[in-house]
């Protein structure tokens, strides 16, 4: 929807669309500027206006239709832009006009041709290309782990909507072609040259002044001038740095996104595990994980945000957004700290539970110590690589916080001591946890002692860093053989330290006052 304006062109009255009006006005102004130096500038504009009126009259003589954007475009095409006029083209004037008509590089959202928020349409208007291509580009970027979506949302927030006609015109950029690029570069160079010349003039003037007081003031001017001259250079450097920071942040966000998406199953059961075994339920775990992720993402998004704002020069008030993000971030921080403390408290105290039992004297006076079954992770549905030796299988938490020691028995009996420890919010709580989990060694066919290969915690039990120390006491001059499978749980002590690895496992060992000795 656009307003219609009534205008008098060359003595004729026309209804003209607001957007078309601004375009026509800009065109006539460019002619005015072009001939501002000639005495009859106004007359030329009037003549041209009369011709435009004539063309419009011809076109609209039978209808009451208003002059639209396209009609103005047509007129401009017929009449030609002032820089296309054949005639007295002094280069001085040329550069003057091109500088005047140089368009600003502001970006606006085009709500008139929007699909979602008009971001793509805005870019399309700026670069004079079909919005379809930009939309496709965003769509493709979306499949790169949502980068397109993130970028779109950010742009949606920071790009203002083109509301006024002036903004709508500003939104429309010049067609990008070699000529334009060349023009822009030339203009930039010319501007720089002018600035440098001015600066040089200033320097000359400053040093030719005799008035000391004035000189003082001029030194200030000089510095100001120098700053003005160097400014563009710093601006470019700053832009490059900001751009680099933005790219890094974007990469980090994308990598986090990839991590979450591709390892979704993994992340999901991590959180599940967390909820059921560490926290007080799934919700708490989700809250913690979400907060932790947000804690990292929000500042990154904020940086990307400000970078784009800086680079595009959009001065849109994003107070609400930054305030909201700030509050959200603070909430996340509080949540993480609070949950951290809550969970930390559950691990404050250590409790123990010790069982000791004698085992029947093995036949042949040798005890064979082995694991129930070697740990194979292959069949297990999930493996937490990050927590070493910690697995979840059908909601049962399985881990291998097991230590095995071989010591010398004080008497003539084979003895096994099972020392369990766990943590808790209080000493009693910890002791309870240590008591609650089952871990039993068992003896088969007299001479074989079987050690379970893992600690298993049911889903209704919490994980509280449960640990098991198994001490096998072998009487002096009796024998023991340790299976290779026990290797990963074996603790080195005074009785085994003399033995080499190959000697320790799979060999018949004799307990002597100086420790275990291999028997060949």
């Amino acid at each position, binding site marked *: 929807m656009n307003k219609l304006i009534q205008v008098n062109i060359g003595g004729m009255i026309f209804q003209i669309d607001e957007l078309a009006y601004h375009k026509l006005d800009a065109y006539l102004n460019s002619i005015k500027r072009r001939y501002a130096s000639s005495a009859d500038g106004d007359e030329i504009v009037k*003549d041209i206006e009369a*011709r435009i009126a004539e063309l419009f009259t011809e076109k609209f003589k039978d209808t009451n239709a208003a002059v639209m954007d396209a009609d103005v475009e047509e007129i401009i095409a017929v009449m*030609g832009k002032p820089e*296309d006029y*054949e005639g007295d083209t002094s280069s001085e004037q040329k550069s003057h006009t091109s500088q005047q008509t140089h368009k600003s590089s502001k970006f606006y959202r085009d709500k008139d041709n929007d699909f979602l928020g008009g971001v793509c349409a805005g870019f399309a208007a700026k670069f004079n290309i079909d919005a379809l291509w930009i939309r496709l580009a965003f769509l493709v970027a979306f499949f790169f782990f949502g980068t397109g979506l993130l970028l779109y949302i950010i742009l949606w927030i920071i790009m203002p909507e083109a509301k006024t006609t002036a903004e709508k015109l500003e939104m429309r950029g010049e067609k990008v072609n070699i000529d334009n690029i060349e023009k822009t570069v030339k203009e930039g160079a010319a501007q720089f040259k002018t600035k440098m010349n001015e600066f040089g003039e200033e320097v000359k003037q400053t040093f030719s002044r005799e008035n000391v007081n004035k000189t003082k003031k001029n030194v200030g001017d000089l510095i100001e001038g120098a700053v003005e001259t160097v400014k563009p250079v710093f601006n470019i450097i700053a832009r490059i740095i900001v751009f680099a920071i933005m790219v890094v942040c974007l990469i980090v966000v994308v990598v986090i996104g990839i991590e979450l998406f591709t390892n979704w199953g993994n992340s999901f059961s991590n959180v599940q595990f967390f909820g059921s075994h560490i926290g007080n339920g799934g919700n708490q775990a989700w809250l913690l994980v979400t907060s932790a992720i947000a804690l990292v993402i929000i500042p990154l998004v904020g940086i990307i945000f400000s970078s784009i704002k800086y680079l595009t020069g959009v001065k849109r008030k994003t107070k609400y957004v930054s305030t909201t993000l700030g509050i959200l971030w603070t909430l996340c921080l509080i949540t993480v700290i609070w949950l951290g403390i809550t969970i930390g408290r559950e691990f404050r105290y250590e409790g123990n539970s010790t069982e000791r039992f004698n085992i029947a004297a093995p036949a042949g006076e040798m005890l064979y110590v082995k694991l129930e079954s070697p740990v194979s992770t292959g069949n297990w549905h999930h493996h937490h690589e990050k927590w070493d030796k910690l697995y979840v299988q059908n909601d049962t938490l399985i881990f291998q916080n097991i230590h095995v020691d071989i010591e010398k028995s004080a008497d003539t009996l084979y003895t096994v001591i099972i020392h369990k420890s766990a943590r808790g919010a209080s000493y009693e709580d910890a002791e309870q946890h240590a008591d609650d989990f089952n871990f039993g060694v068992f003896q088969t066919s007299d001479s074989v002692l079987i050690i379970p290969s893992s600690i298993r915690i049911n889903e209704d039990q919490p994980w509280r860093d449960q640990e098991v120390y198994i001490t096998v006491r072998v009487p002096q001059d009796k024998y023991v053989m340790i299976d290779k499978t026990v290797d990963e749980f074996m603790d080195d002590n005074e009785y085994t330290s003399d033995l080499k690895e190959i000697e320790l496992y799979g060999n018949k060992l004799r307990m002597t006052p100086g420790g275990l000795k291999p028997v060949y």
Partner: protein
Amino acid sequence: MNVENAQAQMRKGVLEFCILAIISEGEIYPTDIIGRLKESNLLVAEGTVYPLLNRLKTMELLSYQWVESNSGPPRKYYQLTDKGRQFLAGLNKTWQELSNAVSINTKHLKTQTNE
């Protein structure tokens, strides 16, 4: 001076000459001048005519008078001044000489393009 500039200079001179020639036929208003120029494919941007007429007027080669129109506001009708007529005669003479010289010197070019 680059190629584009040379062409522009050439066209500019020819355009001035043609406009003066058209006006010499009798009083005429700009739209008709434009029509004539367009017929002969000499004009690209219509807007070009107005500053040119203005300049020729400032040089006192042209004068104009307002004539009422029954289809709109009054129109400017241009005519040559005495000075303008002399100037046109001078231009015409130069043009004939130039045209002759050009046709002799570019004969080989013409035959080339005709092939």
